């Protein structure tokens, strides 16, 4: 099985990922009307690139500032509801970005719950990015922090360092790999943010991602979009390269220090303040979302069957579930074959294959969708094929499947297989009785993950979904763009529905203790 396993992912990614990507590159280079120089020289587009960069940087700094106290508290202290808090911070991160955007529209958009409006400003984008990426910092930094023995700081103070000095000279250097990795991830997500910027930024704010979408779909400026996609890809690959370096550096082997109860008094009060402030920040937008879906006697819910769009909003749920089922199936077949290839072959070429598989993770979804648009018209025109939606979703999900499953298979000690052989198991039996059962929890987690990714995918779907078969995120986006209480209520109701579905999947996975498997 190992010989041909590589063919499936190679063929699938070759045709649906690399071929479109190369076509985008070709379009950007061979533009008849627009040269690269024209695009890069355009002041408006240059300011889009600059804005993309600085808002990502600022989002990263703000996220670190907001989430580090929570990371510290979760790592060091045992407080009532710690497990729930740890799992709860993951919810915003797992939510589809379109739901996050809808929640912030509900909070401070037209008729919002707070008395003022900051939608259509950069602040709305920044706060939403902090909300979305909070978990990245808490989980990445908190996990490492948990493994730094507080006795090291005590040892430093015994050697004459003040507490501040001890933190700066002992804890901070040990924490730096996680801080850098978390910062790189938050920067990457903010850099490629699409749904949040599109909905909250208003008509005049654009990141590269949003501009690619507008140039390609509204202005039909494929060549400009292609150049921007390449600029964006270069940025993303640079960030990922940095991230990979931090990942290597993070391979400290430290022992887990169990959290302790905070001492009564200021310490306990500080822990409570951090936990309640973080919880309020993460819960408020979601609570408002639910509340506003129930406004006007739940008008949004009651009217879901109406024909506000060309089709009824409720039909989008059926579409999404169908697409998610197909996308999950594709992602699992391709992802498991790829994981097997990576895990069982330790050659140099398999490491290259590993790196290639991660590329779709870095490539923005908008670029994927755009690639379909420019590449898949020949030899057969696939551009309006319904399967393109689940295929795009699968492309987004495959790196996650590989990341979840391959490390588990790879980490099976060779000794276990040898022990099985010594007990009389043939190679085929070893695979069936050792490898498969050990990897299956990860594969199950990957299945849930792929399903959730597909349910929430927006960037690529915006290009590939047919108008008469919108997915839930596409329907939410289109409803938010319409004036009136009914479309708004419907958008809220669909967002709540998507939130519940996603939270159910994530909660199920976390309950089954798959939360600690792999990283993002």
């Amino acid at each position, binding site marked *: 099985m190992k010989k041909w396993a590589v063919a499936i992912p190679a063929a699938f990614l070759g045709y649906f990922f690399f071929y479109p990507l190369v076509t985008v590159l070709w379009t950007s280079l061979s533009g008849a009307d627009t040269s690269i120089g024209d695009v890069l020289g355009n002041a408006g587009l240059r300011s889009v690139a600059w804005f993309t960069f600085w808002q990502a940087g600022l989002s990263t700094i703000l996220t670190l500032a907001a989430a580090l106290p929570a990371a510290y508290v979760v790592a060091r202290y045992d407080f009532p509801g710690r497990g729930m808090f740890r799992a709860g911070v993951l919810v915003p991160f797992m939510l589809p970005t379109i739901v996050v955007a809808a929640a912030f529209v509900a909070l401070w958009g037209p008729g919002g719950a707070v008395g003022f409006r900051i939608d259509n400003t950069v602040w709305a984008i920044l706060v939403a990015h902090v909300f979305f990426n909070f978990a990245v910092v808490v989980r990445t930094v908190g996990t490492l922090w948990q493994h730094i023995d507080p006795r090291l700081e005590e040892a430093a103070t015994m050697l004459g360092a003040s507490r501040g000095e001890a933190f700066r000279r002992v804890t901070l250097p040990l924490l730096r790999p996680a801080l850098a990795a978390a910062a790189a991830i938050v920067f990457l997500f903010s850099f490629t943010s699409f749904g949040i910027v599109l909905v909250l930024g208003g008509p005049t704010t654009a990141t590269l991602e949003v501009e690619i979408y507008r140039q390609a779909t509204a202005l039909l400026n494929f060549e400009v979009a292609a150049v921007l996609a390449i600029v964006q890809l270069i940025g993303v690959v640079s960030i990922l390269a940095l991230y990979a370096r931090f990942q290597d550096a993070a391979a400290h082997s430290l022992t887990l220090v169990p959290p302790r109860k905070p001492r009564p008094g200021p310490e306990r009060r500080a822990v409570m303040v951090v936990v309640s402030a973080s919880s309020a920040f993460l819960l408020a937008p979601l609570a408002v979302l639910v509340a506003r879906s129930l406004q006007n006697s739940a008008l949004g819910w009651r009217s879901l069957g109406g024909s506000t769009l060309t089709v009824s909003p409720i039909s989008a749920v059926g579409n999404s579930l169908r697409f998610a089922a197909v996308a999950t199936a594709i992602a699992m077949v391709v992802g498991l074959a790829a994981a097997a290839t990576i895990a069982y072959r330790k050659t140099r070429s398999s490491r290259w294959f590993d790196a290639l598989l991660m590329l779709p993770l870095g490539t923005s979804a908008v670029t994927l969708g755009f690639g379909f648009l420019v590449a898949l018209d020949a030899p057969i025109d696939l551009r309006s094929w319904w399967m393109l939606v689940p295929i795009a979703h699968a492309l987004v999900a495959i790196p996650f499947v590989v990341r979840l499953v391959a490390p588990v298979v790879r980490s099976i*000690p060779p000794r276990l297989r040898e*022990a*099985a052989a*010594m007990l*009389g198991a043939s190679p085929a039996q070893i695979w069936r009785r050792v490898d498969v059962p050990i990897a299956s929890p990860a594969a199950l987690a990957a299945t849930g993950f792929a399903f959730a990714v597909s349910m929430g995918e927006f960037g690529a779907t915006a290009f590939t979904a047919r108008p008469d078969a919108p997915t839930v995120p596409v329907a939410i986006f289109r409803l938010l763009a319409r004036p009136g209480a009914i479309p708004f209520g419907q958008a809220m109701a669909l967002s709540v529905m998507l939130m519940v579905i996603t939270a159910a999947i994530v909660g199920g996975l976390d309950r089954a203790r798959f939360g600690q498997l792999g990283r993002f």
Partner: protein
Amino acid sequence: MLEIENITVTLGQRTAVDGASLRVEPGEVMAVMGPSGSGKTTLLRTVGGLERPDRGTVRWAGQDLTGVPPHRRHFGFMFQDLALFPHLDVAANVGFGVADENGEVDQALALVGLAGSNRRRVQSLSGGEQQRVALARSLATLPRLLMLDEPLGSLDRPLRDDLVRELREIFAAAGLPVLYVTHDRDEAFAIGHRVAVMNHGRIIQTGTPAELWAKPQSEFVARFLGFNNIVDATLDDGMATTPWGPLPTTAAGMGQVRLVVRPDAWTLGSGGVTGVVARVTFRGDHLVVEITPNAGPTIEAWLREEVAVGDHVSLVADPAGVLFLG
């Protein structure tokens, strides 16, 4: 029964086993001992079929096992890191290699003193219990040879001593030949009917514990046994001329020799090797005493008499404890 003949195994650039030969008879417990990196584990893995020898053969009852895959050899193997299956409970681990139609699992668990632990998770067991599960698992298949790679490696001393005693009884009850790898001299002597000493991929001496103790054939074996009083000497009709002075021996003959005085051969007595006590370590029934003699290298003596650092002493050697190498 088991015949290892002139085996050479190369791992990457390194020759891990270099022309090793060994026989294990029916019902015999053979302990293979040597320092880490001496090739003991590789030798064991080769017998199990997990490594392929470059040269030499492994035979069982006359049958050449080259080309027989591990799962067809019917050998039991207990790994140093135990390699318990984390996704299976105790009974499923023990029963991995058997159909369990005749209660082999319960029998094996009873044999190692874990009866009734069938449904426990292996992660919930203590280190010693995990060791027992691993042993029960390799016994449950009723193998024709049992191999153990440092089975007590990670346990602390008192628990080890208990388990060594138990293992001996289990091996006797099972009545099968055993190949037992350890770096620990005491463990090897306690377990093995015979002991093979390995160094640099070669088996340099094989014998019963008493034979090894009485007649180490090389300086390496002598030092591994803890005999560090080794010097060049001239032998002349029952007397050896050493850097420490003349020592009586039981050997006749003449010539240049490499001579060992076992540390337990020394006692205090007049007219012997004189020196000053440099270091004393209390060991319960005896003291390990390092003496700086007036001439010659430092002497290690296991004394029952009371001495203190700085004492001037005179040592005499029991001729039966004066040995010759090579």
